[in-house]
């Protein structure tokens, strides 16, 4: 295999299938379970339904898991949970494919070298925990707590965070901050003083007109938002989509505007220009509630629709029409903040430009406009006293988030500090780092090779587990408690419970137990004796109990009033207390106070900019090996989308397989199927992220399509908040011999 270079210290190990679930006597049973005809466990003759929340994406919808004969046979949307509203996306229904995946990690594993050969051997939990604790302890003793970092994704990380903080370690990084939630969160914070939210604070279902910039709703099945878009369409919502690709959402739009990739800010500036020069903006709202209008006006004055047309490839008349429609339908109109927002180095400014467009039409807290959903007001848990940390935030970027405790630095900073020898140990929870964007596969593996000690906690043998010194098999979200979900503000504020539907399978354990065992070995008091006691205490503080919340999986508040009253004075938690069209925080930190357009490089001759997205039935790593979800031919592999004219130039035909080569000469390890389609511009290609796995133990995902992450070699850092853009990567095609 050629996925790394000079892998001496940390050879990628093929986990012997002896240690995976499928080799046990379980394999036949699992086969039957997936096809639905099995009867392996005790038959109590009844169906049992357990309400919990999903872990297949960060949205965390409520689920109802249906158990028959001791096995989960189907998962539906919880009718009690505000985010699922009784309905569910395909990935949610696919939980049965994860819990009954025969490739699951079944036992703790320890890397060992014998006779020059590195292999994994099966270990007992006690041995694996003792070994891990000893290593972490020694590294902390030798180099200090700053030598340990946790990289994580997913909701089970909280117990490990508590364990580490009690141990004095607080370097935490979530790769999704780098390219998704970071810019979105910070861009809105700097402008409105609050986050863009999840679900996004847009009153979609009551809106008359929404502009989307490259947001792939429908392909990214964020259940609640898709439900609202559908309801909006039924009620008359008009949609306009700027996207180089005719996405599913563009298929719902009144107007698709095939914008040249990398020119969004120019377009947004032009829309502002029209709103201002044609006096279409909400003058009273702007005067009363914003600062920096004059500065904004001066900046966007140069971006006439004609100038923007040259940059974006969208005719000036269309730009005017969109701006006029937006103003006409406002305040029941909005520009959606989108997700996965860091495409180049200016993602934060791009999100700010979206926030500013909304502010200009005065749609704040108006029906169909931008709203601020509230969280459930949960009484605080027991205060915990941690050792003093050297720093609360480790990031070197001046505007890195300071209110998201799950991130104290960007994940690419973890890579860099590892290369520099500062970080010696990685604790990786639920994130398949080599295949997760940030700096691309090659640089990530370079960093992994510098790590002295790597622990991976996961349910499946992902690529990252192949590099680990210790692999700790966690049971899936359907077999465990996690911390309460307090994190999703929505129309009806709620607290959600994750609870086990069935007992942990094999020798896997819930994260809360693994963290507790580690804490005990490390000699720190971090967690309650058992998770049920902890959850019950928390829920009792809110006037309920674990027993009560177990019934429906949620604790609900009254729906909140989203709209402002006539004459209501608005306040914002920004430095000025106003919506900051010109951001004082950006200015103070030495960045542009109003968003400016930066030209991105064009593709080299014969190359095409790589755009990415997803399929509705898959969520990258979590679902890559999910046999149930991968059953549909549309889910099984990714394709490279190319416009017919570009395809002709390269003599590519629909359905053939090609290798991709990027501008740095990296050739995709596996071939990818060509999809010749009118649905994309001639200067770009598109591929779904999260395919092309090179770990053979992911039996279903191995060699299916090409890896997008492998083809990332150029990244740009947003110097304000530390996010990473990666869309200046280009590919050409190598035809099969």
């Amino acid at each position, binding site marked *: 295999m050629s996925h790394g270079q000079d892998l001496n210290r940390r050879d990628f190990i093929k986990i012997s299938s002896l240690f995976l679930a499928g080799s046990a006597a379980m394999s036949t049973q699992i086969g039957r379970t997936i096809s639905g*005809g099995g009867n392996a466990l005790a038959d109590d003759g009844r169906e049992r339904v357990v309400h919990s929340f999903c872990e297949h994406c960060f949205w965390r919808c409520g689920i109802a898991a249906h158990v028959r004969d001791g096995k989960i046979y189907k998962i539906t949307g919880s009718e009690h949970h505000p985010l699922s509203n009784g309905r569910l996306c395909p990935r949610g*229904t696919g939980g049965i494919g994860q819990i009954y995946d025969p490739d699951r990690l079944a036992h703790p594993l320890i890397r060992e070298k014998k006779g020059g050969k590195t292999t994994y051997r099966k270990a007992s939990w006690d041995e694996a925990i003792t070994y891990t604790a000893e290593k972490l302890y020694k590294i902390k003793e030798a180099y200090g707590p700053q030598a340990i970092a946790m990289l994580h994704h997913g909701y089970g990380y909280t117990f490990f965070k508590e364990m580490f903080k009690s141990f004095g370690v607080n370097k935490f990084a979530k790769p999704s901050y780098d390219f998704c939630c970071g810019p979105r969160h910070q861009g809105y914070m700097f402008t409105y003083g609050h986050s863009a939210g999840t679900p996004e604070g847009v009153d979609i279902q009551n809106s008359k007109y929404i502009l989307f910039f490259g947001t792939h709703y429908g392909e990214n099945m964020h259940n609640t938002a*898709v*439900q609202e878009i559908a309801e909006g369409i*039924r009620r008359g919502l008009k949609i306009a989509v700027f996207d180089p690709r005719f996405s599913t959402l*563009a298929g719902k739009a009144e107007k698709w505007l095939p914008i040249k990739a990398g020119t969004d800010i120019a377009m947004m500036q032009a829309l502002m220009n029209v709103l201002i020069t044609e006096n279409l903006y909400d003058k009273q709202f702007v005067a009363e509630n914003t600062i920096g209008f004059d500065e904004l006006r001066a900046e966007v004055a140069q971006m006439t629709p004609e100038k923007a047309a040259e940059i974006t490839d969208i005719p000036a008349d269309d730009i005017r029409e969109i701006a006029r429609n937006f103003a006409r339908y406002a305040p029941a109109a909005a520009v959606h903040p989108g997700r996965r927002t860091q495409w180049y180095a200016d993602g934060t400014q791009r999100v700010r430009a979206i926030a500013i467009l909304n502010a200009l039409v005065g749609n704040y807290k108006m029906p169909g406009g931008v709203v601020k959903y509230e969280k459930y007001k949960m009484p605080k848990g027991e205060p915990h006293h941690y050792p003093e940390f050297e720093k609360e935030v480790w990031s070197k970027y001046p505007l890195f988030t300071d209110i998201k405790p799950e991130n104290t630095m960007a994940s690419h900073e973890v890579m860099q500090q590892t290369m520099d020898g500062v970080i010696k140990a990685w604790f990786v929870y639920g994130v398949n780092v080599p295949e997760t964007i940030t700096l691309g596969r090659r640089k990530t593996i370079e960093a992994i090779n510098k790590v002295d000690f790597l622990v991976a906690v996961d349910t499946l043998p992902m690529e990252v587990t192949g590099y680990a010194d210790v692999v700790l098999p966690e049971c899936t979200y359907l077999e465990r408690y996690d911390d309460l979900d307090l994190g999703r503000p929505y129309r009806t504020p709620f607290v959600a419970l994750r609870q086990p539907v069935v007992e942990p399978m094999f020798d896997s354990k819930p994260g809360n137990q693994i963290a507790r065992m580690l804490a005990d070995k490390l000699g720190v008091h971090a967690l309650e004796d058992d998770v049920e006691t902890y959850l019950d205490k928390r829920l009792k503080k809110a006037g309920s109990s674990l027993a009560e919340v177990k019934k429906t999986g949620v604790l609900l508040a009254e729906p909140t009033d989203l709209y402002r009253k006539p004459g209501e004075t608005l306040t914002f938690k920004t430095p000025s207390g106003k919506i900051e069209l010109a951001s004082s925080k950006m200015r103070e930190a030495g960045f542009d106070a109003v968003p400016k357009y930066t030209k991105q490089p064009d593709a080299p001759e014969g190359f095409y900019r790589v755009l990415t997205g997803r399929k*509705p039935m898959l969520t990258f790593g979590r679902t890559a090996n999910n046999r*149930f979800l991968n059953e549909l031919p549309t889910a099984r592999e990714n394709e490279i989308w190319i416009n017919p004219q570009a395809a002709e130039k390269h003599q590519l035909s629909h359905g053939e397989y090609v290798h991709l080569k990027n501008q740095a000469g990296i050739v995709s390890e596996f071939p990818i199927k060509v999809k010749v389609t009118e649905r994309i511009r001639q200067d770009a290609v598109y591929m779904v992220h999260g395919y092309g796995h090179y770990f053979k133990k992911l039996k279903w995902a191995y060699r299916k399509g090409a890896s997008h992450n492998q083809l990332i070699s150029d990244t740009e850092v947003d110097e304000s908040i530390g996010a990473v853009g990666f869309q200046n990567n280009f590919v050409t095609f190598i035809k099969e011999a």
Partner: protein
Amino acid sequence: MAKQKNYGMVIDTRVCVGCSACVYACKSENSVPEGYCRDWVVQETNGTYPRLSMENRSERCQHCEKAPCVTYCPTGASHYAEDGTVQVNRSRCTGCKACLAACPYDARYVHPEGYVDKCSLCKHRIDQGLETACVSVCPTKSLNLVDFSDPDHEALALMNGKEVYRQKEHAGTRPSLYWISARNKPGV
């Protein structure tokens, strides 16, 4: 006496995003074997860049009023149920595939156990007053179960004033699936 039920579906393609939740929900509800499905999603794009249009459809057995599968079934396995759906009696089916050839909608497959299988409109659920698995999971409410014998049925009103079609009507099958075209403007 209660009026005879007559079930079918109204499918609003304006809102369908082709996510396939319906397919997976059906597979787990009905234990559809690996490699087969009773419903499927079609994403149809028309036009040339940049003037394109799209329709997403969740398709399945159309529960025809004049079903060729019933006509051509030599054993009577394929039959009309009292509620207007078309069902297959597994014990009478010999797997001869005459129905597969007759069905204009390609809605049937031969189950590995030898009988012909297809969408039952979740008869086991609708008999209990529940909606089908696909209808109840659908995040966009594109899928609507309808009892055509009830003129006040909510989903019937969805079709008012809109361009609605049925598939392959020329085949004379009188299908019970009605499609609200994606060409309809929002909010009509």
